[in-house]
């Protein structure tokens, strides 16, 4: 309904895309100028015939872009014939889904009880001070982000941390330093 309300003479393409995407099925011409939307649509359409595929599609989109671009909600809603609200509700429910680009290196510390039993809280505190960011935050320059996780299933070999997507057990402060340094240097840690 809102898309009818034109308050300006001419909408920019960006505004059009934002306002009209969910209304215009197969809005190919708009998406031609917006490769991200077109790609999101392609990713969504690839699985749209599966039953209840929304989470899988969001994973696929996030795998491709590192996060969920703005057009994800309207485009995926349109492809799956859901409301934008429903897609938004799902994205916001799951802590894995991010609508902003991730940090270059994400450090995730397990805060499960098993890891706490072997010093996870101290490790998390160390990570905060070393990285200068709070849990759930990014460094200002986007170089690194810190997250908390409740259990990686590595409970016999804690404390556990994931650095740049790789899981590490028996992580000490020194080891975490080395892993972060290595990840930021672009290498694969060992």
């Amino acid at each position, binding site marked *: 309904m809102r898309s009818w309300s034109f308050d300006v003479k001419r909408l920019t393409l960006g505004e059009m895309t934002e306002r009209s995407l969910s209304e215009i099925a197969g809005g190919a011409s708009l998406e031609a100028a917006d490769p991200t939307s077109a790609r999101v649509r392609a990713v969504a359409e690839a699985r749209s015939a*599966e*039953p*209840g*595929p*929304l*989470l*899988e599609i*969001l*994973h696929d989109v996030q795998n491709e872009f590192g996060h969920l671009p703005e057009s994800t909600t309207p485009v995926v809603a349109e492809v*799956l014939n859901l409301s934008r609200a*429903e897609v938004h*509700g*799902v994205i916001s*429910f*799951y*802590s*894995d*889904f991010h609508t902003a680009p991730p940090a270059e290196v994400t450090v995730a510390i*397990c*805060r*499960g*009880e*098993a*890891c*706490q*039993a*072997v010093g996870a*809280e101290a490790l998390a505190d160390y990570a905060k001070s070393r990285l200068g960011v709070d849990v759930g935050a990014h460094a200002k320059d986007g170089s690194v982000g810190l997250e908390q*996780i*409740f*259990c*990686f*299933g*590595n*409970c*016999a*070999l*804690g404390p*556990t941390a994931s650095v740049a997507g790789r*899981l*590490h*057990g*028996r992580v000490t402060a020194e080891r975490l330093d080395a892993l972060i340094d290595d990840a930021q240097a672009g290498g694969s840690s*060992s």
Partner: protein
Amino acid sequence: MTVTVYIPRDSSARAVGADEVAVALTAEAARRGDEIRIVRNGSRGMLWLEPFVEVEVDGTRVGYGPVQAGDVAALLDAGLLTGADHGLKHGAVDDLPWLARQDRLTYARMGVIDPLDLADYETHGGLAGLRNAVAMTPQEVVDAVSASGLRGRGGAGFPAGRKWQTVLSAPGDTKYICCNADEGDSGTYADRMLMEGDPFTLLEGMTIAGLAVGATHGYIYIRSEYPDARDILNAAIGAARTFGWLGTDVLGSGRAFDINVRMGAGAYICGEETSMLDSLEGKRGMVRAKPPLPALEGLFGKPTVVNNVLTLGSVPFVLAEGADAHASRGLDRSLGTQVFQLAGNIKQGGVVELGFGVTLRELVEDFGGGTASGRPIRAIQVGGPLGSYLTPDQLDLPMEYETFAAAGAMVGHGGIVVHDDTVDMAKLARFAMEFCSEESCGKCTPCRVGSTRGVEVIDRITAGDDRAGNLTLLLDLCDVMTDGSLCAMGGLTPMPVLSALTKFPEDFGLTAQEVTS
């Protein structure tokens, strides 16, 4: 002559360097001209020894561990490939008491076989259960599961046979088998290990379930923290389809069954069966009110078996060896085995599969060897974040559903997390509330609002702010959460809180008398 070396691909083993060991061994052996074949097996479950490298010598597998990449050259120098002595050598794996003392039914092939080698799987007894099931009527399969006494391993301990019977009896052409692989409890990892180390067992259990209740499709809902397990399962499903096991004609039976893996997205609550179903449907993982039971109105509103990984993973044994073989293990009404997981501050962490009834002491002290720190045990949490804290004087409790329930605790998924005497139990109680507030789906009020208030009230108690008044409030809150919550998340969160409070009041700045009066 080529020597076979086993290096686990289990993600815990990888987290402590298994991949690096494999790379180093490949490179070093090539450099030396040694012909080796590396098999990336599952973990034997002796996680404190990971990376645990096994070398097959004259048909015997000899174990070394924990091996680091830096040890490889020295090990080869010492004669690793001939099973020679070394400081890291533990001898013939099958003879290691830690393994030999176990009764591995579900985990029979764990660490033994190449997880993705279907021939290896069959050689070690795989598919025998399914082949039997194919020859039986659905009711006979359900009857076998019922007779085995198999109960849900995910924590609630609901009889699997009864659930299957409900689904079998439910009208409708479309039914589903949903495997709950959202193993989110800290201290539990047996599901992950089975999926990574012996995925075919799970697929076989699901297929049997499908034939038993008349479902043609199964989903494995796996948490996103387990990407390795997802990849291995997908590969295993591909192999099973090629083999003619999954698909339109299960092992030539003329009956169809197929499986897809679906991944969660970071929501503990989706381990609750109804919110898992919502999540599988691509929705917010909100807990559904019961009734209707998922067995009658489950996935997409159809009759659905929801079982966890170990439950389904136990089914092939039941069908292969018979219900009695399963029912002969265990204690009282807790029949069969459980795959207990030793975690936290423990010297020898890992998995121990034994019949129900083994005492906590046997597991923690005999298998676990006490704390990793060497300090005294102060508290043990059994059954995940929602389980009670037990004290060392409760170590002789047998691991059995009803006994634990009577003691105000729960066996749950068989996860055991040990804390030494440096632990601050008020912090853990606060964490229980914090965890609930972080992971609550938000549907019901006691859980959504109560958990947040719980953190605040505990903070006020530990800060010494009107301790008596806030203690009363905390007890009232726990009452409301226990009896008022929609699901076990809010309903059980008071268990760790209250057990910490009553057993360790001093950590809260309270006396035992204040807490009990």
